[in-house]
């Protein structure tokens, strides 16, 4: 399973990549929205972990763009953010995010399980 991690905080990106790597995922990291869009097209991940606060394009803009690209629209996107306002969560889910996870509330192991569930659902659908 391939996972694209879109996170501008270096420490967090590395921690996520290490954990998902140990859990059997192939990982790629993008630090900006534009890079994320480019890599999504080239890397063709099975799932995208997307932060909201990014330099340049925001995570919401990236999400909207991903859903507009036919080839990428079905790729599940999970928002991983520390913004916990109801309006942010609602907005993201309306645009098409599969889930919205607040970083401080999820241990890494639980996060991995959650992503595995989402990916397996996608694979079952396929």
């Amino acid at each position, binding site marked *: 399973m391939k996972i694209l991690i879109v996170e501008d905080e270096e420490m*967090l990106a590395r*921690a996520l990549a290490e954990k998902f790597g140990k859990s059997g995922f192939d990982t790629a990291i993008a630090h900006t929205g534009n890079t994320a869009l480019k890599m999504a097209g080239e890397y063709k991940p099975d799932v995208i972990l997307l932060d909201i606060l990014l330099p340049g394009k925001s995570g919401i803009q990236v999400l909207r763009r991903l859903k507009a690209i036919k080839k990428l629209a079905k790729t599940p996107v999970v928002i991983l953010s*520390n*913004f*916990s*306002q109801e309006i942010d969560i609602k907005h993201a889910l309306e645009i098409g995010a599969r889930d919205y996870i607040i*970083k*401080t*509330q999820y241990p*890494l192991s639980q996060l991995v399980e959650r992503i595995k569930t989402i990916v397996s659902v996608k694979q079952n659908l396929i």
Partner: protein
Amino acid sequence: MRKKLWRTFTYAYTKKDLAILFGLFAVYFVAGKVGLSFASVNPSASAIWPPTGIAVAALILLGYRFWPAIFIGALFLHAGVQGTFSTSLGIALGNTLEPIIGTYLTNRFANGRKAFEEMQSIFKFAFFAGVLGAGVSATIGVTSLALAGFVPLNTYASVWFTWLLGDTGGALIVAPFLILWAEKSSFTLSRNRVPEFSLLILASLVAGWMVFEASFPFISLAIPLFVWSALRFGRRITVTLIVFLSVIAIISIFNGNYMLVGKTPNDSLIIAQMCISVTALTFIGMAAIIRKNKIMLKNLRQEEAKIIEAKAKEDAILMSIGDALVVTDKEGAIILMNPQAERMFEWKLEKAFGWPVANVVMIEDENGVPIEKEKRPITLALTSQKKITTTDQDNLYYVKRNGTRIPVGLTATPVILDNAVVGAIALVRDITFEKEIDRSKNEFISIASHQLRTPLSSVKWIIELLLEDRLAETQKNKLRDIYHSNERLINLVNDLLNITHIENGTLPSSSSPVNISEEIQRQLALFQETAGKKDVAILYKKAEGDHTLLIDPVFFIEPFKNILENAITYAPKNSKVEVRTETTHTSLIVTIQNDGPAIKKEDREKLFNKFYRGRKAQTIKPSGSGLGLYIAKLHIESLGGSIWFDSPLKNTKGVAFHIRMPMPPQINPLRIHNTRTVFV
């Protein structure tokens, strides 16, 4: 009357009084001499008798105590005319009783010295003084003379009649003249009326000459002058004119210049007296009515001016109100708008007048969907007869004519008169600034919480990864300690964020049916293990009935968990924690009680304060943030409930916390996001 009369007999006269007595006596005597000079039918009976008027005026103006001047005056007057001392005494008695009776009745029933201010009291005065009093004087006087043989029986009637009418004339002509000129208000004449007044005087003099020299009919000349005077110059001038022309007429008659219808000069004088007396009554009455109407008109104008001033003040206040003000009738049609409303709606009052508010300005919700007319605040206020208040949480927007939207807060109040709605008043505030502040606040909270959480997330995950590595147990223990501290920080940030949301009214909530009893049992099951470690038994006594409330479950579960956890934490080993529910007509009360130590006195007032932790709590549970009870209180109060504790308990040890929730729940709209505020 008896008291006053007694006082007149026992009154101690001052020097001034004695001087007045003497003066009154002198005037009475001289006037009497003049009157008796007109006597023809009997030396003591004259058709012209001014002393009656002088006497009545004196007692009304000065008081009953001056009666001796009248008595002595009358006695001296008639003693020198005819009869014996007894007849003079009788006449004096009658002449003294006359003004006393007239004065008493006038004071009692005709407003005393204000008798000439109204038609009704003028006629009463005429009857009391001019008929009753004069009748008493005529009867006693003529009878005294008749008994002594000075009035033959066959002339009794004519003598009595002459006496009566002479006294009546004196009362109706002389008394009003004296009383009106004795009034405190001064006679003033404005400059522009001097020519008219001079003309009236001239006309009166000419009329007097015409009566006196040319024998012109008195009434034909006098009446127009009396009407003119009554209409334009008031009672005093009118009565003065009456006296002046009456004197001229009487002298003319007496000199034989002209004869009225009558066989003898006495008959002419009697007829003249009657005419003049009636004329005097009529025109003094007319002048009184005109005066009263003028006063009423003046008062009316003053009241009108006051009303205009009050209205101007009211308008100034309305126009100065900082918010937009709209007043509608009971149908919701605009009847008043202040300048702020005109600016907000971009409509002038002249154009908007009479139009329903819905036609003048559109209201939308935050999504741009127009609010239906029936659901607009003014319509709701008119139909429900209750005040409707909206806040920034209701997200209402007025759409201006140019299409721009402004967020508004609005209060619509029905105007109720005699239990019926007659209209509504709406105050509308442009809350763009408040919205912006809210937005900035929310943005700040959002960014601040995000920035605080980011390094905490890094620490959390990196420690998790480290714990998966091969490390010594001691190293792992240290990492676990760091992890727990980090979790405490994360919880603190979450709590602070929650508090900020609740206090700002931006905490999201969604209500669903919550079975309180089942929820309590679920939570108790979760805490069994924790309680078991201390051998603390958890008991549950459930009140009868189904306790399902439509609330956001978090708003009950979090406070309940917090208090339950505290109860178990502070319960001694091998003790119990009891949870029980009970209901009243309007509330469900959940009580959590332990056998732990009582809350210290110095802690009780502050227990629900933000960040407060008592010493005991700091010892037993050092990791607490001091926010749990504060947040619990906010949550419960958002449901319209309350939270409190009892410590120490009566007859037992321990602490009991109570959570009261109203049934049905009364959501506090100031606390809950996305709840429309209505029906205040």
